[in-house]
């Protein structure tokens, strides 16, 4: 059965060169060797027709189905075997099937991560792993964070520090958990008065800081060429206000979300060539967020620069 599944997944992916080079995300345990560069282009489609107003799950016919599409170029660079840099810049488009409000589109936030491999230690029949990822992101262009839910992002700089722990067994099974503290700055809006549990006379909104947890159980098959993971993600803002009754969200909101998902990635096995990835996420619970279903797919191209 497992073999059958594996072949199905394989067949759905591109015919590719094999390699040990690896594309990665800021929350996983994957690292690239020195001088290796992986570029990726990811498309993501996310939609919801229900959202949480505070903790109340509701519909709104003047939004109908809300759709957010993202195209994201991404690059990961093996600075050294132990230090990798990851950068990404998503282009986002939002629209609603109902109502008369205009959707938005444009580039969102440029994010740069530094990922460090601190520990790889054989322990029993596997390796114990510990990595950290520090990232900084900042809005580019002039998208307006105050057009929620249509805004492309929170419009604030973000600094994050993440610890990633894992255990990768020799038989290909991986258990991984990562926890990040996200420090968010302010977003500048285009009005100089707003309501957040009272009057605020400012054109700046404080975007709440958050904790972000990622967990995964994965399996590396076909000689480390195919990676399959079941994932869990949880993000909790530590402060903030709720969307008020039948009102629109704003960047000061205390957003919370937890979702489960799956991730499949096919790696190449030569110095350069194409790879592919696909993922799915389903929001289970949330606060001041849409109950989104997300699918994503991407192609990667890797090569050795030095």
């Amino acid at each position: 059965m497992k073999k059958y599944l594996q072949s199905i997944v394989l067949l759905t992916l591109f015919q590719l060169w094999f390699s040990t080079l690896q594309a990665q995300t800021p929350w996983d345990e994957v690292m690239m060797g020195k001088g290796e560069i992986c570029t990726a282009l990811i498309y993501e489609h996310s939609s919801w027709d229900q959202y949480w107003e505070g903790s109340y799950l509701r519909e709104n016919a003047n939004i109908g189905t809300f759709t957010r599409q993202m195209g994201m170029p991404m690059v990961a660079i093996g600075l050294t075997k132990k230090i990798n840099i990851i950068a990404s810049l998503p282009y986002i488009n939002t629209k609603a099937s109902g109502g008369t409000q205009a959707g938005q589109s444009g580039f969102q936030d440029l994010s740069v991560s530094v990922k460090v491999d601190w520990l790889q230690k054989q322990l029993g029949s596997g390796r114990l792993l510990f990595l950290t990822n520090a990232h900084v992101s900042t809005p580019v262009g002039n998208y307006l964070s105050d057009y929620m839910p249509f805004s492309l992002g929170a419009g604030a700089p973000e600094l994050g520090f993440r610890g990633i722990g894992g255990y990768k067994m020799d038989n290909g099974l991986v258990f991984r958990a990562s926890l990040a503290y996200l420090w968010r700055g302010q977003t500048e809006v285009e009005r100089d008065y707003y309501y957040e549990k009272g009057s605020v006379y400012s054109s700046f909104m404080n975007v709440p800081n958050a904790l972000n947890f990622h967990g995964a159980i994965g399996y590396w098959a076909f000689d480390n060429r195919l990676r399959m993971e079941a994932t869990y993600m949880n993000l909790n803002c530590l402060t903030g206000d709720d969307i008020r009754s039948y009102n629109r969200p704003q960047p000061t909101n205390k957003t919370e979300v937890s979702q489960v998902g799956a991730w499949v990635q096919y790696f190449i096995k030569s110095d350069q060539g194409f790879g592919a990835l696909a993922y799915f996420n389903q929001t289970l619970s949330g606060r001041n967020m849409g109950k989104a279903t997300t699918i994503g797919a991407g192609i990667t191209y890797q090569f050795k620069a030095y």
Partner: protein
Amino acid sequence: MKNLKTIYITLFSIILITSSCIEETPNYYQFDGYGFEKLDENGGTWKTILVTSPAQISISQPEATSSAAYQAELTNLKQQMSSLTPKEKEAVKYWTSNPIIRWNEIALELAAKYNLIPGPNADGTYTLPNAANPAGPPAFPFAHPPYTSRMLAYLSVSQFDALVVAWHYKYEYNRPGPYRVDTNIEPAYAKNELPSYPSNGAAIAIVSKEILAVMFPLEGAYLESKYQEHIRSLIHAGINVQSDIVAGTAIGSEVVKLAKQRASTDGMAKAQTPKPISDSIANAAFERFGWKWKNMETPQRPVGLTPLFGKVRMWNVPTVEEVRPGPPPAPGSAEFEADAAELRKFASHMTISQRRIANWWEDGLGSYTPPGHWNKFAKEAIVKAKLNPLRSARVFAYMNTAIMDAGVACWDTKYYYHYPRPIQTITGFKTILGTPNFPAYTSGHSTFSAAGAEVLAHFFPADAAQFRARAEEAAVSRLYGGIHYRFDAEVGVAQGKNVGTYAVKRAKSDGAQ
């Protein structure tokens, strides 16, 4: 690994640097307390709005400063002042020598808190806020622009009248302030020669609390706590003794009665009509002009916002018909098509500056509304000019009655012509601002703003051009937002200006010039 250390140190430094350049997000206007530009010793002779004459409200003659009763009050004041907690000191600083500013801010905050449109029920019907059951849901009130304009008018008029009466007795009895009687008392605010009996602060506090409690019935406890804090701060600041306060609240209470009486019979209770009346208003327009506005939301709202607000009693304009403009161009006419084409052009080629203007003036749901925005301008102008509370109340009273009158005039026009919004006439049109639940012509924001600007231009002539330019910008912002045609905005500005001149004319003859 050395590189690594550098990277983390750099990151840490970025956090520190960016943390230190966080902008403040204040909850009220932070300004330095100021001495009054003048005291208006003859303020008690100014014409009032609700009160016939100050003699209509009587207060007892105060005890002499040499009396044992007064001396006991003075001792009590000094005792309290000598043992203030940090919180009490903060309250003294917060309320300032011009508490009109703070009560106006409290009013705007409640407007923003209650400016939430009721959503649909599960079966697609809508429940309207009900004054008889304020807790709802939905909570009462929905503090939309007409509601807020009226709330601010009653608040400001009551404050103004209470202060004229207070000034009348201040200069009739001439009892000096505590720090004039006892030079050991160091007041928290700049010293002046204003007689302290009756307390103007207490008069402001009681009318503000009472009027706002009528307008926001669920906020009684909150308003009471603000009131108590304000009253205590008068003694803590060293500007009033207890008997000053008692006399001030006595005046305020009488003014509140007059205000409540007017408010209960001004027609507001009938402004939100049932569907049959609303439909007959729409059909009358359709028969007259061949068009009618309809709500485009899903599910459709059966009744527009306050169809009969145009019948509410005005303050400065004798009849609403005299400020009703002529008809807008018919949909489909060449003039209409030109203005509709302009909206399509703005929507598809929005510049950053146009977007900014649309958003800066949005004043939509959840905000303090366009009238609130003009109250903020008035507040800033008042502080800049260092006006005393009486003169501040006068500015707010004339501006807010003009703004409410503008609202009444605009609503009369809106439902008389019943003109469809751009999202109704232009197929597939999408907007960056939400389209409100009432007809287009004339633009409310334009009308409110032009009326407010006209009054502020009169009171602050040096800034007149700036106020008028702001009103023009408020008007055009609605085009960028996609919710009004140019003719809505231009005729709205003319209408608001016209309504504003009635208030200015009245102000010119109230004895304060």
